[in-house]
């Protein structure tokens, strides 16, 4: 009998098969992923999790008998009251006794769990940060242990056996510690001489020598605390690319739940996307009416507030926060603004100036999303904010703006903004 411990074997034997499965069901999984992502909160959206795809797409057909018609037989255990000749009402067409499908593979959907990584890969296929945004700003964020020689004290786990043994060997050689095999040879020699006549003198001399060597061996230890060496690690700081994302939203009375929901979806996508590209992503929520305030996510999306609409306040607040906490030379700054397009007309000029002179120079990318209801579509001119922003967008490629009126448009719009060059990723195509 053999006992083999396989627990240390590299795991993930099924990984290749799993990947093949996902690749095979890719189109289905992708659709499911996008549906699933709609139901989550911004920060949970990258958590992977359950995905349901229609079983039809990954079906493995076999030749088997159908469940309808013909004459069938069952043998069942646990009879209590039936006698021969009794009639039994046929149970509902499915689940007829033992006739239910044994392998549990019905016509139902196929449900399985995706890992975070897989989820995101499918979710953000073929998206890329705009070329102009490739400013690599590094912040010093984490440290990494690097081997840096040896030292004479440390935890047992970092004991360097080879270095310790090397020290031990040189010390033993220098101090003339006899080797065990020398002693064994001498003992053998003494035994041989004892067997011969007239060699007593020689044997006595050898014995004395042996005794001396044994003492030497006791005095000079095999490993001395002096020999012990530990590996030494230095913590080397490692630069990490990081980004901050500003979510600006108008929360005045004219923004209803539907519009907020659209905005939230857009923010979720942006957050996810930045998360993929940067080690660390901070999110700052700024909401504004006629005055702007930094808030947490819960308040941002759910609390109500009334007041007029002055967009420039939000931009000022953003500029202030950047000044305080996110120096532009250390952070990649992204901003996304959602609004129904209302603004106090006299504020427009102020807003545009702020944007042009302060905000855009700070940002990698500034996206303006105008949310509305589908019935507003094609309403001719566009809102006052839209008209005000139009010249800026035309002249500065760091800024983009889109209109969204329905949930299903969010993803295509997002893709449109970030589609890889040459991937031709218009929204419609991506959905196909």
């Amino acid at each position: 009998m053999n006992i083999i411990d396989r627990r240390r074997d590299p795991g993930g034997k099924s990984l290749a098969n799993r990947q093949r499965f996902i690749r095979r069901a890719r189109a289905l999984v992708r659709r499911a992923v996008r549906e699933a992502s709609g139901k989550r909160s911004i920060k949970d959206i990258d958590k992977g999790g359950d995905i349901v795809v229609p079983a039809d797409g990954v079906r493995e057909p076999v030749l088997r008998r159908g469940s309808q018609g013909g004459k069938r037989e069952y043998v069942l255990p646990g009879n209590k009251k039936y006698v021969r000749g009794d009639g039994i009402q046929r149970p509902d067409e499915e689940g007829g006794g033992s006739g239910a499908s044994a392998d549990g593979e019905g016509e139902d959907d196929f449900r399985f769990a995706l890992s975070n990584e897989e989820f995101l890969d499918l979710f953000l296929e073929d998206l890329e940060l705009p070329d102009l945004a490739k400013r690599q700003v590094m912040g010093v964020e984490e440290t990494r242990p690097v081997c840096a020689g040896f030292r004479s004290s440390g935890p047992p786990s970092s004991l360097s056996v080879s270095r310790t043994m090397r020290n031990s060997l040189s010390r033993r050689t220098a101090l003339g510690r006899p080797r065990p095999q020398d002693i064994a040879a001498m003992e053998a020699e003494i035994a041989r001489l004892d067997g011969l006549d007239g060699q007593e003198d020689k044997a006595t001399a050898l014995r004395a020598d042996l005794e001396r060597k044994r003492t030497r061996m006791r005095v000079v230890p095999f490993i001395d605390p002096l020999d012990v060496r530990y590996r030494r690690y230095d913590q080397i700081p490692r630069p990490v690319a990081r980004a901050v994302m500003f979510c600006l939203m108008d929360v005045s009375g004219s923004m209803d739940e539907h519009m907020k929901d659209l905005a939230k979806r857009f923010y979720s996508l942006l957050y996810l996307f930045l998360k993929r590209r940067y080690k660390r992503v901070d999110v700052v929520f700024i909401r504004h009416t006629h005055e702007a305030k930094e808030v947490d996510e819960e308040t941002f999306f759910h609390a109500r507030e009334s007041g007029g609409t002055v967009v420039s306040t939000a931009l000022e607040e953003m500029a202030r926060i950047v000044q305080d906490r996110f120096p532009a030379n250390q952070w990649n700054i992204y901003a996304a603004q959602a609004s129904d397009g209302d603004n106090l007309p006299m504020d427009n000029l102020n807003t545009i100036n702020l944007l042009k002179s302060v905000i855009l120079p700070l940002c990698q990318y500034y996206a303006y999303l105008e949310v509305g209801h589908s019935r507003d579509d094609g309403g001719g001119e566009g809102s006052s904010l839209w008209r005000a922003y139009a010249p800026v967008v035309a002249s500065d490629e760091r800024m983009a703006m889109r209109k969204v009126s329905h949930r299903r448009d969010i993803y295509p719009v997002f893709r449109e903004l970030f589609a890889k060059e040459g991937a031709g990723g218009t929204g419609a195509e991506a959905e196909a």
Partner: protein
Amino acid sequence: MSDDAVLTRKKKSRLVTAPVPAPSSLLFNGPDWNFETLSRIFDAVREIGEGELGLDTYRTQIEVITSEQMLDAYSSVGMPLFYKHWSFGKDFARNQMMYNKGYQGLAYEIVINSDPCICYIMEENSATMQTLVLAHAAMGHNHFFKNNYVFRQWTDASGIADYLSFAKAYIAKCEERYGLEAVERLIDAAHALQSHGVHRYPGKRSMDLATEERREKERRAHGEALFNDLWRTVPQAKDRKPATKKKIDEERRKAILKLPEENILYFLEKTAPRLQGWQREILRIIRLIAQYFYPQRQTKMMNEGCATWTHHRIMTRLHEKGQISDGSYLEFLHAHTSVVMQPEFDDRRYSGINPYALGFAMMQDIERISLTPTDEDRSWFPDIAGNGDAYGTLKNVWANFRDESIISQYLSPHLIRKMGLFHIVDDHAEDEMEVAAIHDERGYREVRRALARKYDVARSDPDIQVVDVDLAGDRRLELRHNVMEGVTLEEKDTDRVLQHLADLWGYEVRLVEADDETVYAEHKCEPIRPFA
């Protein structure tokens, strides 16, 4: 009952953490084990298995794995290596989800019919469970694999590991050479036909010359002994109508192609006109693997019965010999009873007859019949009743039967009554189902026959055969499903499989579903993307 067992186990584990010096005969104390314990347990189990029960096993190789690795093993049908295909990934994804959500536990062990016999055991198992698992797999299943005639006839335990490693390497090489997509599509098609890629009967072996000569001599001697000149005078029958040329052609064609043929994959491998060499080889690999698993399907119930009976006996003996503690024994009983639980048909948990339950009950029943038979047993089983050699009888049964035959031979009235088995006929032409037989004097044989039929794999798989193909003409492949009891094939799936078949064959395929009187359905399929 089960709650009590859990309680006792809990109490026990609390007890053993106290430093009570173990009596020296105990194999282990408490739930912990290490490799030394494991080998001590194995020796004790083997001593009883081989010494007392006289089991004959392959060498054993025990491999300790984690639950994650167990999940991996699940998705490659338990084999240590297997070729890659997305369908295994699908199984894996499902199992992983079920396991992570807690819908489904994992098996305690997986055992492989190979020489040496590989037993995977989970690291989470307690020492008692490891003992149980070793008795079950390393003794019970192992003995069954080595001795049962179906396994001996169809599988080569010493070669399977090498063959799988060849298969894996070959398919990987094909993927590299002909592209992932091409190979994947081929395997999809082959998997769809895998259930019809087994030989159900061993073919006739061609005889060597010496035997041929001997038989020829015997035949001649027989002819001489029977020679009687009078036969010459008997008037001859009128000449039958000479067969038409068409008929002769057809018969000749069928003879050359050895039709009809029920092993569809084999037929394709040998005959499909457009396949390339590597494609035939992959079909062969998949067909041989299906053949390797075929015995397992035929003996599932018996195999588990044998292993369950063996572990029950070994654990009981260990307890009697004082090698496991009372607490361990109760822990074992708890696990054992939940494995052999048979919910009744009207129970919500009922999902068919539990092979462990039926198998274990049958083995116990055979033991009872051979040791303490009743008069009824004596009249039903004169050959084994009261022969006093339970172990010998069981070993004989394990060696020479399969599920269908052991039931039709040894399912006793006693057990039928005990399980309350009854037989229902559901004829869709009638308004309601009918109880055809129950556990009474008139019904025993009928119930037994019906249950045996349920376990007959050749009956439960639809009987589909390649019946004709005109290679010189339009090359249409003709198949026939011999319909039994008016049950036809599931339509959607059948059309999908036929599509695969047509692609493999390269020309039109037609499947007729019929019995002697009626033609039920006809499926036709043209190849869309033929393999070539």
